[in-house]
């Protein structure tokens, strides 16, 4: 009986041309977005591979010199492109993908809130994620706005109810028919992912990508499911299909264009973030304080690199100085980054009203292009910088400090350079993404349950 209802619904979508037109249009956009993203990724991917290789070659082949000079020149590390970034580029385009590992300071990563936030909602960047997040609900609305209200106008609803068909069975059949539409929209995502990953030796762990794709599809089905049940509920409650269309379009416009922008501002008000100049000033002040304290403790002076500390202790001083900085850097970047996470979480909670706010975050996390993944990379890069610093300061302590006043005549060559390992960064596994998405996924599932309950409640008395 349910299948009967589903087939009739689908037959109607198909015969009145709505499905072919709507889904066809969405599919064309979707596939275009997909191919463009995939192509870009391939290009950038190879560029990055080459650049990373060249940079390390430069490090290895640098001439003999004092290790600390080499540390000032530093090394560049490149963030690998997550395999699914072509589905959802997330914040990829708004945060730096290259980090300079140099002496003394963690380099600035471009985390300006303006970039982090408004860039994300730029309407019009054609990506597969955007197509599903924004046009997916629209397709559901176009297919489903008259599900009940249209039949009410037509008079067929009366006819159906008079046959003794329970309204929940009608609802279930209609919901399944719409899910079929949603699935047709998402199926390409699944197919393309499998295809892209299986034919791609750059993609890193294929297994992981498959798991991520699976969760991505699951998340989007939940997302579209929310719209399916809201659409059916509104259609059951409104007297005419014209009214249901207006109500649903209003909800769509608010939920997919206005709310995502507005909530960014709300989050910024609730969890304010210093601008970059303020951030740097505060970090510098803190660093100076830490340095002074550490120098005072070890060398009895708060003047860094002054004549009070002999050159025979320069290597040791470098180490003390570095370690004093690590703490301050961790604290400051940590606090800033926690704020970003707070902002994100706040927006995710508003997903209860506007599901796009939680799916946006979930989708980025599953595509490994969200801030949490970026933070993981930045932390790794900073660890690698510290590894280099520590190698250098301990080498200097062991070998150069003995030279006394001639400390800076000490030079090292290839043998030492190659002790510094290549920066090998593996993006975290799907489990990491899932852990970070418990909040957004929870909100999505809760919204789905609420919308289902709402739909059943609305259609309990259909005449």
């Amino acid at each position, binding site marked *: 009986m349910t299948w009967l209802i589903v087939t009739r619904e689908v037959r109607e979508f198909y015969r009145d041309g709505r499905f072919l037109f709507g889904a066809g249009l969405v599919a064309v956009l979707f596939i275009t977005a997909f191919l463009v993203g995939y192509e870009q990724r391939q290009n950038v991917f190879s560029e990055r591979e080459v650049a990373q290789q060249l940079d390390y070659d430069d490090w290895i082949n640098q001439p003999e010199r004092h290790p600390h000079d080499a540390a000032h020149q530093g090394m560049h590390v490149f963030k690998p492109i997550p395999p699914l970034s072509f589905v959802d580029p997330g914040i990829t385009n708004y945060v730096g993908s290259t980090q300079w590992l140099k002496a003394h300071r963690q380099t600035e990563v471009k985390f300006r809130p303006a970039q982090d936030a408004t860039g994300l909602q730029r309407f019009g960047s054609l990506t597969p994620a955007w197509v599903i997040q924004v046009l997916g609900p629209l397709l559901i609305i176009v297919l489903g706005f008259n599900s009940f209200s249209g039949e009410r106008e037509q008079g067929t609803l009366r006819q159906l*109810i008079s046959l003794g068909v329970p309204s929940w069975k009608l609802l279930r059949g209609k919901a399944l028919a719409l899910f079929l539409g949603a699935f047709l929209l998402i199926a390409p995502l699944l197919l393309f992912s499998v295809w892209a990953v299986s034919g791609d030796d750059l993609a890193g762990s294929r297994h992981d990508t498959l798991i991520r794709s699976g969760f991505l599809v699951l998340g989007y089905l939940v997302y579209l499911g929310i719209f399916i049940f809201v659409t059916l509920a509104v259609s059951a409650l409104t007297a005419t299909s014209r009214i249901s269309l207006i109500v649903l379009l209003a909800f769509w416009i608010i939920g997919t264009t206005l709310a995502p922008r507005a909530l960014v501002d709300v989050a910024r008000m609730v969890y304010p973030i210093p601008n970059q100049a303020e951030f740097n000033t505060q970090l510098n002040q803190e660093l100076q304080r830490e340095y002074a304290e550490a120098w005072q403790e070890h060398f009895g002076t708060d003047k860094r690199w002054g004549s009070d500390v002999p050159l025979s202790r320069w290597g040791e001083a470098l180490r003390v100085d570095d370690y004093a900085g690590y703490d301050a850097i961790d604290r400051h970047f940590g606090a800033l980054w926690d704020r970003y996470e707070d902002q994100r979480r706040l927006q995710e909670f508003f997903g209860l009203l506007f599901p796009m706010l939680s799916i946006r975050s979930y989708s980025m996390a599953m595509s490994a292009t969200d801030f949490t993944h970026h933070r993981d990379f930045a932390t790794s890069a900073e660890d690698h910088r510290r590894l280099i610093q520590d190698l250098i300061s301990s080498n200097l302590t062991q070998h150069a400090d003995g030279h006394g006043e001639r400390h800076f005549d000490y030079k090292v060559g290839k043998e030492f350079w190659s002790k510094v390992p290549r920066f090998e960064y593996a993006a975290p596994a799907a489990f990491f993404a899932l852990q970070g998405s418990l909040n957004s996924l929870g909100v999505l599932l809760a919204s789905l349950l609420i919308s289902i309950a709402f739909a059943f409640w609305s259609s309990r008395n259909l005449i």
Partner: protein
Amino acid sequence: MLKANSLTKNFNSNIALNSVSLSVSQGEIYCLLGANGAGKTTLINHFLGFLKPTSGEVLVNGKCVTSNPLDTKRDIAYIPENVMLYGVLTGLENLEYFSALATGRKKPRDVLRKLLADVGLPAEAAERRVATYSKGMRQKVGITIAMAKNAKALLLDEPTSGLDPKAANEFSRLLKTASENGVAVFTTTHDLFHAKETGNRIGIMRSGSLLAEFNSDDVSHADMESIYLKNMRD
């Protein structure tokens, strides 16, 4: 089979039905006469469970409609004044869908084609989309849906309005066949002649009250017309 016990329905301050009691037993054809707005459709809506009584009760096959809304619907088939079908589906597909929903299983298409032919729908029309149908053709599909349900009672809301005389006549015959098979038929109409021809029992309703009830065999055409007009005048 169909029973109303002092059924009263108020819409705000309007009294739509005023303590109406009537009953239709198996094999009986009950014709309810009345002008527009007399409350005939309101009464049918109560049997369908679309409206809840203000007081009194409605029973189908001994079961109260208000407390068994789904069960009671299984025993009745309903043909409205304008049968509403899905325009983008063919007549045959409409019949297939509605009858499968009503009975819980799909009938073979050949059987359905035969049913449509039986009520006089041309074979060619059965395969066309309903959007192209005339009112008479839609009524025929509606009748077929009702027949295919094999219900114990038929509820008809001015079913012959808009049908040509030949179709109306065929329709009356179908009702008689149904009643011979033990189906209880309750139909509303404006058509005195039709009521006298098909009905066993006739009721006259005005402003929500059932004013007269008699067996059609007990009165002549002329008597009936005078009874009707007398009740309408008061």
